[in-house]
């Protein structure tokens, strides 16, 4: 693999890596025909993010011939390459990424001003394929908005808050945190925000549902989205139902898509019955075990894994249903004006296999 990123794109790459570092500790690298996929998953496999950089993002893009290559690297090591975002813009002229499969090394070379060259040789491990898998049903609820809206919304919640519940009606969306019943009342704070449908570019509700998900991962994506200023699309459905990727946006909106990025987070709300959204659950850290997922069939199965965890540990709260929240944002190219068709990454998730009783 041999890729070169030039100019302002180096900073975009660095920001994407920083964003992924908020999800998981390892960076999964997979150069493909469609582009370079950088992915991350959290330790409980309940959140997944993927940045796909199309070949046009690079000034040179060559991938290994004849075989698929995948690896994972400690994300802190890659972050060390792009140490200071502020100086990146000013000093780095280009970034060269080269793969040495014999030595199991991925080399990042930054060509900087004044002739200075920074070379980082990072060792990687082979990895299993990391892809969230969804079935192709359509989402009940689809929203699109400026990232600023979500940033301004989440800022009201304390940074230490782990989970937030989003619920929708035809015209409104609520963001609310959950306060434990036995929490210290003098220190507890319940925050609820209501957003009107007018604040969104698109607000399509078919099912009045609510989902609870981990805020930390969303913040990671928002940092990236805000810096690029691109709209965020949000999809969710009923608990337990699968979610699908969006159809490619119409060509007049985005002529060239050099980056696609997706964040998939798992909902952890308790659903008393199949119809309504249940009250929010205890914090994510309590509810999910850190059992590593079986990678045997090359798919992350967040749903089934969570269910295994539930039955294994009787101390866990029962009746967790979940669905997947799927955040996507698409980046148009800056300079090129070729009419490349959008190559949307197929991201599929398996349907949860059984209903939790």
């Amino acid at each position, binding site marked *: 693999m041999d890729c070169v990123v030039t100019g302002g794109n180096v900073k975009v790459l660095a920001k994407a890596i920083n964003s992924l570092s908020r999800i998981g500790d390892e960076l999964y690298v997979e150069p493909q025909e469609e582009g370079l996929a950088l992915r991350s998953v959290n330790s409980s496999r309940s959140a997944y993010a993927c940045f796909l950089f199309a070949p046009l993002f690079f000034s040179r893009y060559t991938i290994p011939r004849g075989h698929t290559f995948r690896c994972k690297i400690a994300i802190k090591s890659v972050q*060390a390459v792009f140490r200071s975002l502020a100086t990146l813009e000013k000093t780095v002229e280009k970034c060269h990424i080269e793969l040495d499969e014999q030595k199991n090394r991925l080399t990042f070379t930054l060509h900087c001003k004044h*002739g*200075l060259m*920074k070379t980082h040789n990072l060792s990687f491990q082979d990895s299993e394929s990391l892809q969230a898998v969804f079935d192709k049903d359509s989402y009940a609820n689809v929203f699109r908005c400026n990232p600023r809206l979500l940033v301004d919304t989440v800022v009201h919640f304390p940074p230490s808050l782990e989970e937030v519940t989003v619920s929708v009606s035809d015209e409104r969306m609520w963001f609310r945190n959950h306060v434990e019943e036995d929490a210290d009342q003098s220190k507890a704070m319940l925050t609820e925000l209501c957003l009107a449908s007018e604040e969104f570019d698109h607000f399509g509700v078919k099912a009045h549902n609510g989902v609870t998900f981990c805020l930390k991962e969303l913040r990671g994506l928002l940092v990236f989205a805000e810096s690029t200023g691109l709209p965020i699309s949000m999809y969710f459905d009923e608990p337990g139902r699968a979610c699908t990727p969006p159809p490619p946006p119409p060509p007049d909106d985005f002529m060239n898509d050099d980056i696609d990025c997706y964040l998939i987070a798992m909902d952890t709300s308790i659903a008393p019955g199949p119809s309504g959204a249940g009250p929010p659950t205890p914090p994510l850290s309590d509810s999910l075990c850190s059992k590593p997922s079986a990678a045997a069939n090359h798919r992350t199965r967040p749903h089934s894994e969570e269910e295994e965890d539930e039955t294994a540990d009787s101390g866990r709260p029962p009746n967790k249903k979940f669905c997947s929240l799927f955040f996507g944002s698409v980046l148009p190219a800056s300079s090129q004006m070729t009419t490349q068709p959008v190559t949307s990454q197929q991201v599929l998730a398996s349907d949860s296999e059984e209903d939790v009783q």
Partner: protein
Amino acid sequence: MPLSTQSQADDEQYVLVASLDNARNLSNLLKAITFKDHAIFSATPNGLKVTVEESKCLQANAFIQAEIFQEFTIREDSVGFQVNLTVLLDCLSIFGGSTVPGVSTALRMCYRGYGYPLTLFLEEGGVVTVCKINTQEPEEPVDFEFCSTNVTNKVILQSESLKEAFSELDMTSEVLQITMSPSQPYFRLSTFGNSGNAHYDYPKDSDMMELFRCDKTQTNRYKMSLLKPSTKALALSCKVSVRTDSRGFLSLQYLVRNDDGQICFVEYFCCPDEEVEEE
């Protein structure tokens, strides 16, 4: 100035009197070498040298020439003592270290000789503070025997680019490897950390490179923990000279401009790491 009203008679008892209108011209420089509590002060008619050492492997020297001082009187050929550097710095910034332009702490440093404390008269805004710091027997600084005739490779770089490299160095690496060569990579800083290795290459024709004189390819490793304190001196400096001699000893010389634009020097000597290096 209140300090200058001290009687002449008092002065005769001191073997060393050094005055500065702005104590920062001394304290800033001393901060660049404060990695140990104690420092050896050595004064000659040329000026003041302050030395700090670490395990006989690292030595830092700060030089303030006599001309920098508003008054520099020495009654012996050489005056030496050892003081607690941390305490000295605390005294020098006793008025809080304000950075308001035009306001500075004036200093009059007096030493009566062997067995006597170091006396500091500090004044700011009409308020005078007198500090007396106990002195100790000065240890003999290690002579690294680094002489310019033995220097094999020398480069002078603008500090700006080196500052960036040093701030990014992988601290999980135990050593910093410095390669200097008449051919590629010319001047290279390398680290070997947990995530892999990293190299910072400066070409000889870079506009950051003010002088490039390398005769022989040399690669030497130095303990990162020893070199880390030198980043303070680097931060203050505008230029740095990097020299290695035939034994692989490293000399880093930093050109520092003080508040009044005068030039002072800070120098670090470091022993190479004993382990055999591989290219």
